[in-house]
């Protein structure tokens, strides 16, 4: 290679000027970095940049000053001074390199921390804005929610209160927590406070076993559906409810309340029972009519021949006495047969316009002495405005007599019988009540009291045809009998007869069972 000599002037000037420029630029960078950090003092990126710039400035100054000092010290023939400074300049340069590199390597970690801080800050700001928004709109939000709640509450309250069925809520112990108006009416309460918090659902239940079974099913299954339950109103009246209920549990599974709805099906049940009773009695009537007619004729013949034979035998003879016994029992049989025919409405009725109050009073006066002897008082509440009805007075008197006699027999010792009449112009009926405070009728017996020959009296004291005959007579007047009884408390028989034309006068018998 050919050796050429080159001037080092470019190197000299570049070194001096470059070093000076580096010092200037380093400080410029520091200056901008300082201003940047001042704009956002909390931004660690800018702080990092400031550190980086300061480190580079240290490097730039140490290197630039070192280079310039070298040039000028050598120029001024101060080589010894430079030689003594040189290690320091080089050492500081090396340290500056390491400082810059170290700060740079920390940048990633600093940025990661900064990003996390910024994210947290953003989340905090969002949360803060949301809280501020909520604060600003809290009042209107609460008002709006309250209105919505109020509307919803009113809606469901209307349904609750307006329901014709009983709706109730029970607490965890089965006590009433709330109940609607219909529920109060069904159970016979006027005031909600008489029930809520004090009375358990077990109270109105007639049977505690039935209540226990209901609660057990509610606990086990969580609900019961359309269960027919027998309740007793505050006044002791029997009502049948079709009950559906559910139990509500908290997160731990503990029952906290029960909610239920119950429909009053008493009227329907009574109607069904009456229908069944009417069908049963109609069948019995048909049978009775057949039997009575078949027995009536032979009995007539037996009585006729007995009376003929009595004429042939003088009184006092053994045969005469025997014939009298035959005649007596034949007549008893004939009475029974006639009662059967009355029950079956196969006897003729002679209807005319009659005053029911008068009929009632006549029967009471007829029995007054006997009742007085038995220490039974009779209370009458006869309506003075009772309209006249077209009916067979004698037969109705027989009905009243039967009912009063039954009432008397139901009372052991002292007692009271109430008789009343009232008219219902709306339904165009009159009602005649016979109430007693006697022993009442058992649940098992009440469905059979109108059956012919059904009697709870000892054998020989009654034929069991009294109520059957009464039933037949009232039916013959297009009316019906209702009975309400509580064992141990007494019974009330209510005769309901239509006002005006109570059946056709002299109505034809037999046909009625065939309809």
């Amino acid at each position, binding site marked *: 290679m050919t050796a050429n000599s080159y001037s080092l*002037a470019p190197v000299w000037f570049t070194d001096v000027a470059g070093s000076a420029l580096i010092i200037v630029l380093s400080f410029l960078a520091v200056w901008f970095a300082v201003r*940047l950090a001042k704009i956002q003092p909390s931004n660690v990126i800018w702080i990092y*940049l400031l550190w980086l710039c300061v480190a580079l400035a240290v490097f730039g100054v140490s290197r630039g000053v070192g280079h310039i000092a070298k040039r000028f010290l050598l120029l001024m023939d101060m080589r010894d001074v430079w030689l003594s400074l040189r290690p320091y300049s080089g050492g500081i340069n090396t340290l500056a390199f390491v400082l810059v590199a170290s700060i740079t390597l920390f940048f990633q970690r600093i940025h990661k921390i900064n990003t996390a801080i910024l994210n947290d800050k953003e989340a905090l700001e969002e949360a803060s804005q949301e809280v501020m928004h909520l604060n600003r709109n809290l009042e209107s939000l609460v008002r709006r929610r309250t209105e919505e709640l109020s509307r919803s509450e009113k809606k469901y309250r209307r349904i609750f209160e307006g329901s014709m069925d009983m709706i109730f809520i029970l607490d965890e112990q089965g006590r009433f927590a709330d109940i609607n108006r219909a529920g109060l009416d069904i159970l016979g309460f006027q005031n909600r406070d008489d029930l809520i918090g004090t009375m358990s659902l077990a109270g109105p239940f007639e049977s505690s076993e039935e209540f226990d079974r209901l609660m057990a099913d509610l606990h086990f299954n969580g609900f019961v559906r359309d269960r027919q339950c027998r309740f007793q109103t505050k006044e002791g009246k029997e009502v049948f409810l079709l009950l559906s209920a559910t139990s509500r549990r908290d997160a731990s599974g503990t029952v906290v309340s029960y909610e239920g709805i119950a429909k009053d099906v008493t009227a329907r049940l009574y109607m069904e029972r009456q229908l069944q009773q009417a069908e049963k009695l109609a069948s019995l009537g048909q049978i009775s009519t057949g039997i009575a007619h078949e027995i009536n004729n032979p009995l007539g013949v037996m009585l006729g021949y007995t009376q003929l034979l009595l004429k042939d035998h003088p009184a006092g003879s053994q045969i005469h006495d025997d014939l009298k016994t035959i005649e007596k029992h034949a007549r008893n049989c004939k009475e029974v047969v006639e009662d059967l025919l009355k029950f079956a409405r196969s006897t003729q009725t002679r209807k005319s316009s009659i005053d029911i109050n008068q009929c009632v009073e006549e029967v009471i006066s007829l029995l007054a002495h006997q009742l007085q002897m038995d220490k039974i008082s009779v209370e009458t509440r006869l309506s003075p405005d009772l309209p006249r009805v077209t009916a067979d007075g004698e037969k109705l008197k027989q009905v009243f007599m039967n009912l009063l006699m039954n009432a008397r027999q139901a009372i052991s010792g002292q007692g009271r019988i109430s008789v009343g009449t009232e008219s219902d112009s709306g339904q165009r009926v009159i009602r005649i009540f016979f109430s007693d405070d006697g022993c009442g009728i058992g649940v098992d017996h009440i469905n059979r009291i109108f059956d012919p020959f059904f009697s709870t009296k000892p054998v020989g004291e009654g034929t069991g045809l009294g109520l059957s005959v009464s039933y037949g007579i009232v039916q013959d007047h297009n009316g019906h009998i209702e009975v309400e009884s509580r064992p141990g408390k007494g019974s009330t028989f209510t005769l309901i007869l239509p006002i005006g034309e109570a059946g056709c006068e002299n109505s034809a018998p037999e046909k009625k069972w065939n309809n």
Partner: protein
Amino acid sequence: MVIRAKISFFIILAYLLSDSPAAMAFQSHPGPEGLYAHQLAHIFFILAMAFLAYWLQVNGFTLERGWRLIQVSCLLLILWNLVAFTGHWVEERISDAVISGGPDWTQRIVVDSVWTGLYYGFKLDHLVQVPAMLCLALGIRSLYKQAAREEQSGDR
């Protein structure tokens, strides 16, 4: 047993401190070690700048002009470090005789080999370092202006 071991340890330590030869006290650091430390610092500087340039690229910082200029500054500083590192290395391989004249701008260099040629070129390292520092200053200035604008508009 433990007490005996402790006593033995302290006896050995006392012996070493009182009767050790000079070579065991400290190690000398002659001239080349300073150069090596300086060269290692250059390598450390290169690695740090490479890491920063890469990290700015990967994390999308270079979408902004300021950071882009800082990234260019990093690359130029890497180049400068390579020049300086090689310059120091070459300087050790050329003779002082190739440079003649007084210690001023009149000095001359005899380029008699590739090394002296390279040495001459590497001596102009400021041509790389000055643009690097310029890019750094401009980059930070750009970031400052952007931050100031955003601060005024209330975006941040």
